[in-house]
């Protein structure tokens, strides 16, 4: 277990200035993996780089040498002096490295807890490692385990549930009102980054036509073009209230743009179809009393922020559950790795062959009941001796006299050749395929 090493830095330990210097592109990673693989101290290696982290995962026989090699590798390939980033580096070994990898892939270590992209990024990093043949028995198994754990956490905990950004929280609320957003018409009043982000999200949910109203008509035209929508004059807003379903306001107007009476008046016109106001302006554009009108719903920026805060809190609670799943998986992985050791493999090999021999002897002796006991014992002894003789050379080989290079490979071959891992639980067999 101690042969597994993970060295790297992330958004918690290193500022963006350092992370951007060390970030690996896909090409960098490919050449980097070749460099790492050629280092005699390192057996297997994988490089994982996103905008928030750079990590090197490896297995090694000479641990201090491998650590040095990895540090030097980061410094030389990225041409950053080691002392500039060495204080930001963390080093995990054995169980800690496995736990860290599981947590990263399950998005427990992300800047936005539970964000879903990270698993895909780990997967493509692993794909590069397999393409460069820099991953071996242990990393293959470890990464498959990682994907399994990450998926399990995503389905069994609420780590990825519910929006953690203002614009996305608005979409989620919209879906609680309208069910499906497709075909719903959107009116955007004013402009601004957050309003545009919200409209982007809405359009991605296949909403219907987008209307854009702005005090400066040119601005409205420009924004409308972006969403292939219709620009409106500011005075037209009230005419369109009976037409649209979702209204996003973010103007700099000092007073309310839309008042309770305006909305009450048009509800009958729109046959009481629900109307959802997303008011991200400060000061507010929508009179909060509009929320009291039947089938009209108003959320201002504070309401949305509260939703987001609650959801983040929920994710934190779920992260505790996730951590338990990670711990469980670490223990399982350790058990697997221990079973891959020399002694357990040899023991399992002997047990298997002895079992086969004994069963056959019993079967044969059952038909030879007329033999005297002494003869029966002789046959049994013979079969035992055969097993021992047959296993002598393989045992010596596995004990290390004949193993060159990575011993894990030979262990793996031996276990597979004799099918020693048959009693694996079904989930583990599944993630091998």
């Amino acid at each position: 277990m101690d042969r597994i090493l993970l060295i790297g830095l992330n958004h918690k330990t290193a500022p963006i200035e350092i992370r951007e210097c060390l970030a690996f592109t896909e090409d960098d990673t490919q050449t980097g993996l070749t460099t790492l693989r050629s280092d005699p101290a390192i057996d297997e290696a994988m490089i994982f780089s996103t905008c928030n982290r750079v990590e090197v995962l490896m297995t090694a026989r000479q641990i201090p040498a491998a650590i040095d090699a990895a540090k030097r590798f980061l410094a030389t390939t990225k041409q950053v002096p080691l002392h500039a980033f060495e204080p930001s580096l963390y080093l995990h070994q054995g169980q800690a490295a496995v736990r860290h990898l599981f947590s990263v892939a399950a998005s427990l270590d992300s800047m936005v807890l539970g964000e879903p992209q990270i698993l895909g990024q780990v997967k493509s990093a692993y794909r590069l490692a397999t393409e460069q043949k820099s991953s071996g028995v242990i990393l293959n198994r470890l990464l498959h385990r990682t994907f399994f754990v990450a998926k399990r956490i995503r389905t069994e905990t609420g780590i990825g549930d519910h929006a953690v950004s203002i614009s996305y929280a608005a979409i989620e609320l919209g879906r609680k009102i309208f069910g499906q957003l497709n075909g719903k018409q959107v009116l955007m009043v004013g402009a601004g980054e957050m309003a545009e982000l919200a409209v982007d999200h809405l359009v991605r949910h296949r909403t219907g036509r987008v209307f854009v109203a702005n005090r400066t008509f040119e601005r409205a035209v420009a924004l409308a073009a972006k969403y292939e929508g219709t620009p409106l004059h500011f005075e037209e807003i009230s005419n369109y209230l009976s037409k649209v379903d979702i209204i996003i306001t973010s103007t700099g107007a000092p007073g309310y743009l839309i008042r309770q009476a305006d909305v009450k008046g048009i509800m009958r016109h729109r046959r009481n179809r629900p109307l959802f106001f997303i008011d991200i302006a400060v000061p507010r554009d929508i009179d909060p009393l509009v929320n009291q009108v039947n089938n009209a719903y108003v959320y201002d920026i504070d309401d949305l922020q509260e939703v987001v805060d609650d959801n983040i809190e929920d994710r934190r609670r779920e992260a505790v559950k996730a951590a338990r799943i990670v711990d469980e998986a670490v223990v399982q992985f350790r058990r697997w790795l221990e079973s891959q050791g020399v002694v357990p493999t040899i023991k399992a090999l002997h047990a298997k062959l002895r079992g086969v021999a004994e069963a056959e002897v019993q079967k044969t002796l059952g038909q030879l009941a007329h033999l005297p006991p002494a003869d029966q014992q002789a046959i049994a002894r013979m079969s035992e001796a055969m097993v021992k003789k047959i296993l002598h050379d393989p045992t010596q080989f596995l004990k290390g006299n004949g193993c060159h290079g990575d011993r894990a490979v030979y262990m793996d071959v031996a276990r597979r050749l004799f099918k020693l891992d048959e009693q694996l639980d079904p989930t583990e067999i599944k993630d091998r395929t």
Partner: protein
Amino acid sequence: MQIAFVAALLIYMLSAAAYCAYLFLQRNTLQRLGEILLMAGFGAHTLAIGWAFAATGHVPANNLHETLSIVAWSIAGTYLLMGIRFRLKILGAYVAPLTVFILFVAIQFPRSTVQPDNLLQGVWLITHIVTIFMGYAAFILAAGVGVLYLLQERNIKAKTRGFFFKRLPSLDLLDTTGYACIVFGFTMITIGLITGMVYAKAVWGRFWTWDPKEVWSAVIWIFYAVLLHERLAVGWRGRRTAIMAIAGVGVLLFTFLGVNFLLKGHHGQFTQW
């Protein structure tokens, strides 16, 4: 017959338990389990009722026990039927316990039947009974959906996002499901009233006798007709429809039980015990 009935009750109870667990734990397998159990319970229940029908040759609705049992059966059946089109999983947490509750009330009353006057026979009558009960069941479901709608609307308006916010579906789905329940129920009781009148003509020689039961059934019909008309004409929806649907069940209960206990009239054998 007794065995099938007891089995149905037990399976309904399991289904209710599964749905309640689903309400809290939000595991889809629990919902699936609840649904399958509800189907199984409904199957056993159908068997029990069919058995009684085969044995006596008339719809088993001759005392309060049997009538309530048929009410429960109609609610479970209508829910399963509506479930084909409207996937309102959470409603099962209302339907399954309600079914169990009604059956529990039913078994408080003796099963022994007074020999029925041979009124409860013939195609018109069977259609009358079945459609009326299904209509009632649909209205009861509509009221359940209405309660869910009000809960969810409160969550969204008051920005509380409590226990039910995550668990309940969108307002739109609740509203359309409630509407579908009312349309279905209205269609059923319309057929039920017409067949009832045809039967009355055949038995008593008159379509309409101003019996209290008839009058109150007409009140129900008008109540829901107004509700539907307002929706179609001026777009009544959401909160108002939900409240009306809940109020409708009050009128319904009075017609079903209140009239029998307080006002007398024909249909008396339904609720005798």
